[in-house]
């Protein structure tokens, strides 16, 4: 038998994604944003999701459509504000319909990495003495104060990468990697859309950005930009 993580379509790839799940989405701007999988998620329509993404969605983006479809109960992100005008996320947040957990971007990245690496908590100097650090466990190391942060896990991670193979190995292009490699390690189910999907192990071993062990479903999907 041969390991083969390719699935026939986005519907099959998202099988098992259900109400109330924590959904991680890779991408920083459009680079690494799994737009086609987000479309498929909207079509599937699970509700009460916790969305874990670094930027929670400009107007007109597919992430904004998740809010328009009223699928999101909570957002964990480091930027919850669009550039132009109030976003649908902001409207729902102001109306008390969406809960918001704002996390400094580096802490956001490290908490996800920690989840994948079996580290339930770690200390960081970031946010100490600020409103974000209020109420957190504080500890001093070598004369400096640090706050304790917990790992951040997902039920599902949706990723975009450039190339993939049937083993689930991924190769990223440009600034596409950003949060994807960490999210793939932190979620129970990792689903990836790629531009090029190959049957054989076509990515040189040294250039694998995410090893296949972290990937469950992979499929070739068009690169949909906003």
């Amino acid at each position, binding site marked *: 038998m041969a390991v083969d993580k390719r699935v026939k379509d986005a519907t099959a790839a998202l099988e098992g994604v259900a109400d109330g799940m924590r959904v991680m989405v890779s991408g*920083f*701007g*459009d*680079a*690494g944003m799994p737009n086609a999988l987000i479309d498929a998620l909207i079509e599937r329509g699970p509700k009460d999701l916790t969305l874990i993404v*670094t930027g*929670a969605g400009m107007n007109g983006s597919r992430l904004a459509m998740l809010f328009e479809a009223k699928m999101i109960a909570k957002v964990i992100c*480091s*930027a*919850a*504000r669009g550039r132009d005008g*109030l*976003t649908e*996320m*902001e409207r729902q*947040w*102001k109306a008390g319909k969406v809960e*918001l957990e*704002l*996390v*400094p*971007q*580096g*802490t956001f*990245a*490290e908490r*996800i*990495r920690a989840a994948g690496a079996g580290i339930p908590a770690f200390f*960081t*100097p*970031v*946010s*100490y*003495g*600020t*409103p*974000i650090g209020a109420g957190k466990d504080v500890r001093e190391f070598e004369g400096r104060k640090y706050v304790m942060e917990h790992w951040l896990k997902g039920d599902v991670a949706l990723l975009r990468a*450039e190339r993939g193979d049937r083993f689930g190995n991924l190769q*990223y*292009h*440009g*600034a*596409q*990697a*950003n*949060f*994807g*490699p*960490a999210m793939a390690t932190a979620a129970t189910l990792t689903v990836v859309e790629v531009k090029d999907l190959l049957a054989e192990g076509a990515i040189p071993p040294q250039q694998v950005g995410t090893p296949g062990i972290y990937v469950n479903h992979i499929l070739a999907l068009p*690169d949909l*930009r906003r």
Partner: protein
Amino acid sequence: MKLLDRKQMAWRAAQDIADGMYVNLGLGMPMTAANYTPRDRDVFYQTENGILGLGPSATTETKDLDLVAPGGTFVTLREGAALFTSVDAFAMMRGGHLDLTLLGGYQVSASGDLANWDTVGSDRAPLIGGAMDLAVGAKQVWVIMDHTTRDGEPRLVKICTYPLTATGTVNRVYTNMAVVDVTAEGFVAREIIDGMSVADLQAATGAPIVATSNCRVLTAPTIA
């Protein structure tokens, strides 16, 4: 007495970015400083999304949809650039490896506290991004901002009234009136614009500010 405009402020800060530095520039005015760094200096610009060695903005020909700066502009890479993950980018910041970050700000206190991530009473959702990590992690933290609010309220203050980004980490502030170091003794002006006295500057500043004996005139070319 003519206050510096935003391009001049960015230009002035850029003159202090030294050869060989690894630097992260915040969104907005800080990012424009890269345009004014002297040509003979070899600087590596880092970004939150995993680039070390940002090149000039992309043209229609060089544009790569996946090569963007955190602000969303299409960029290129310089010779010797490296690409990595955001986990690695923030480990680089938090670990104290960047020589410098230049950030925008709302307020800086005399003890080096920075408030730059939210404004009280805004009707918008909060935005934080990588500013906290940068303000805590970089070896040097410089802030670029107007010396006062539009209403003339000082932005250099005894104690910040806006939500804090980080405590005690700002080293220097570039304003439209002065270049101010944050020292153990508080604010010290290194340069003041032509025609402004130390007393004038003090009037625009919310905490005691002194000038060094060799305090110079802050000049910047007019930039179109």
